[in-house]
């Protein structure tokens, strides 16, 4: 605000306008007063003429009648000494002329003419001509204007000082501190309350207080808004994470059975093999294939086949160690089960247990039918020279052995 070159305090504008307004007022009042004075002056001149008529004119009449030129001249001078009178001329009926006052006004049209009658009646002995003194009117108006200008000057100066002081104290200082506060406001400071040093007031509220209150409300609103944004972001992030997790899970899982899919085997088995190699741990895998699954499909339909697959996966999962062992659909009705930290013997035992569990299960089908299934197993343990490919090939070969050997059995080898 202050660094802008166009900055101009309100006080300066207010003072300038006050002065302009005062000047206009002075001009208007002066014009009115001049008019009033002019009227008064004219009225006064009429009064002077009346006064002269009642005081000097009878004496002039006597002096003219008695032919006392000195006395006439004295009266003329006395009349001319009235400040309102500019020029006096007495014309005697016998032709003599007496003049007094400002001779330069002698040519002006005489505004007032008074007949001078003789003391004992008879025709007038002369004529009194009075010319008003414009200089007197000017001086009266001038004096008045000066007085008024001085009065107004003092008043306006006092007002301007008052405006400057009050605006500085009541407006400029608080507004500047508020502007500074607003300019320096950062999100971290939103909780800092606005504090303005102000003169003590009698518990009433003014515009500055309203503005300060507005700023406080703005601060509170911003604060609330920012807090709300944080919550929203956390929520959305959580949802996204869940979504990503689900997508991940879906990408690893076989849609039909809920076991891992073939891609997961490609992703996960090499790292299981590598860990077993690196730490010298045991790792066993077993291949599982449902016996005569094609026949089930052919005779009972694919939905039954799918249900058989899902049922079988559920049975196998029950027997596995949760979080350590895992199971994936290798393709068709063939499944891989990885058994980390498991020597071959334990793996064979697990396979036996799985074979027995599957063979013991009787599946109820629609139409009162029931179905019994069996599975064949190829079990092997990871050797030092194995990679995931060789491991799987061997396990698959063992499964093939078990199939050849009559199904529903376990073939194993190191």
């Amino acid at each position: 605000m202050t660094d802008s070159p166009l900055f101009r305090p309100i006080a300066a504008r207010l003072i300038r306008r006050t002065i302009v307004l005062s000047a206009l007022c002075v001009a208007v009042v002066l014009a009115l007063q001049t008019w009033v004075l002019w009227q008064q002056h004219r009225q006064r001149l009429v009064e002077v003429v009346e006064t002269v008529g009642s005081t000097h004119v009878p004496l002039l009449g006597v002096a003219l009648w008695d032919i006392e030129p000195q006395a006439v001249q004295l009266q003329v001078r006395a009349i001319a000494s009235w400040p309102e009178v500019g020029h006096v001329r007495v014309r005697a009926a016998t032709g003599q002329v007496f003049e007094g006052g400002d001779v330069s006004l002698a040519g002006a049209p005489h505004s007032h003419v008074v007949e001078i009658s003789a003391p004992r009646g008879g025709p007038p002995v002369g004529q009194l001509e009075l010319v008003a003194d414009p200089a007197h009117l000017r001086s009266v108006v001038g004096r008045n204007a000066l007085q008024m200008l001085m009065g107004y000057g003092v008043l306006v100066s006092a007002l301007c000082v008052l405006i400057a002081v009050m605006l500085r104290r009541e407006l400029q200082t608080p507004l500047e501190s508020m502007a500074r506060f607003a300019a320096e406001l950062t999100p971290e400071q939103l909780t800092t309350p606005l504090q303005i040093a102000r003169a003590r007031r009698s518990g009433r509220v003014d515009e500055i207080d309203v503005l300060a209150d507005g700023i406080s409300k703005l601060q509170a609103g911003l604060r609330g808004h920012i807090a709300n944004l944080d919550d929203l972001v956390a929520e959305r992030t959580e949802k996204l994470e869940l979504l990503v997790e689900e997508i991940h899970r879906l990408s690893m899982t076989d849609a039909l059975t809920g076991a891992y899919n073939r891609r997961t085997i490609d992703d996960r088995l090499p790292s299981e093999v590598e860990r077993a190699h690196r730490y010298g741990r045991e790792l066993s895998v077993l291949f599982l294939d449902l016996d005569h699954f094609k026949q089930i499909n052919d005779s009972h339909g694919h939905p039954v086949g799918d249900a058989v697959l899902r049922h079988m996966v559920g049975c196998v999962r029950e027997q596995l160690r949760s979080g350590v062992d895992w199971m994936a659909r290798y393709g068709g009705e063939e499944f891989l089960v990885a058994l980390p930290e498991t020597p071959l013997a334990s793996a064979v035992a697990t396979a036996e247990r799985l074979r027995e569990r599957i063979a013991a299960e009787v599946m109820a089908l629609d139409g009162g039918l029931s179905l019994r299934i069996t599975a064949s197993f190829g079990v092997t343990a990871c050797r030092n020279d194995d990679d995931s490919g060789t491991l799987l090939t061997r396990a698959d070969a063992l499964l093939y052995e078990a199939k050849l050997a009559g199904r529903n059995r376990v073939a194993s080898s190191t």
Partner: protein
Amino acid sequence: MLGVWLALVAGPLWAQRVAFINPGKKDEAYWAAAAQSMQAAARSLGQPLEVFYAEREHLRALAFARELVARAPHERPDYVVFSNDYGTGAELLRIFEGSGIRCFLAFSKPPPDGPAGAGRPREHFKHWVGSLEPKAEDAGYLTARALIEKGRAARAQAPDGKLHLLAIAGDRSTTASVLRNEGMRRAVREAGDVVLVQEVYADWSREKATEQATWLWQRHPQVRLVWAGNDLMAFGAIAAWEQRGGTPGKTAWFSGINTSDEAMAALKSGRLAALAGGHFITGAWALVMIHDHHHGHDFANEGLAMERSMFTLFNERTADVFLARFGPRAEPVDYRRYSKVLNPQVRRYEFGFAQLLR
């Protein structure tokens, strides 16, 4: 030396020293004539006379009085003659009180009788022996009457059949002026066929009278008679008339008061229709009275404050006589003839001026 001479010559019984405080100026016709006639009378009566001119400054008159009082007693005059011009009479009487100098008021009316004035002679102020004034009203009356007669003779009446008369008076306050005006008005009243058109006051001034007469003729063109309170104002009016193209004595007539050479010449030439004067002789008559008083012949039986006719109306003949008697080559008048002491057959003072012109 002078004191010794005065003591020898002016012995207490047969001669008395007199001082005259002249209110006027040395070159003023009237007051010069007054002083000259007094000198003549003093010589004639054997009185040493000192004359002081106040030059129309009344404070100077008072200064002269204090000067006389401050003198050593044997150097003080026995009598002092002064006038009440400018109202100085009462103050002068107070100054001379207790100095042993006797006071005589001449020429003008004495201060009024009353608490503010000076009382009457020999009452409050014991040293105030008396006063003598010319009967000023006479001057106005005589000149106005003569003027009116001239007008009638010349048939100067206006269309209304009346003689129109203007009066140019001296001033409003001096007693002599007021009385002259009254005399003029009495003559107008008595005449019956005369209209006093207007009275103005020209302050005894020739110039002001000229100006006023100019105005007056514009205001009252039918006027043919102009009465003036003295000779100078008459001359002023004449000048105005001549400026209008008139001829004084032929188309308009003027009257004046005084005995100046110019006035006498104007009377003889006809420019002035009427002229009265002679009151300057008052001082000389006062010396005669003082002479008699000093020699034990008091005038108290004729009155202490006397107002007497002194004015005379001049004509061509008396003007010549006047010039002979009182002019530059005047033969001295013998004032001893009028003294009661020196002329036991005189029972009453005759102060008329005409007798001096016989």
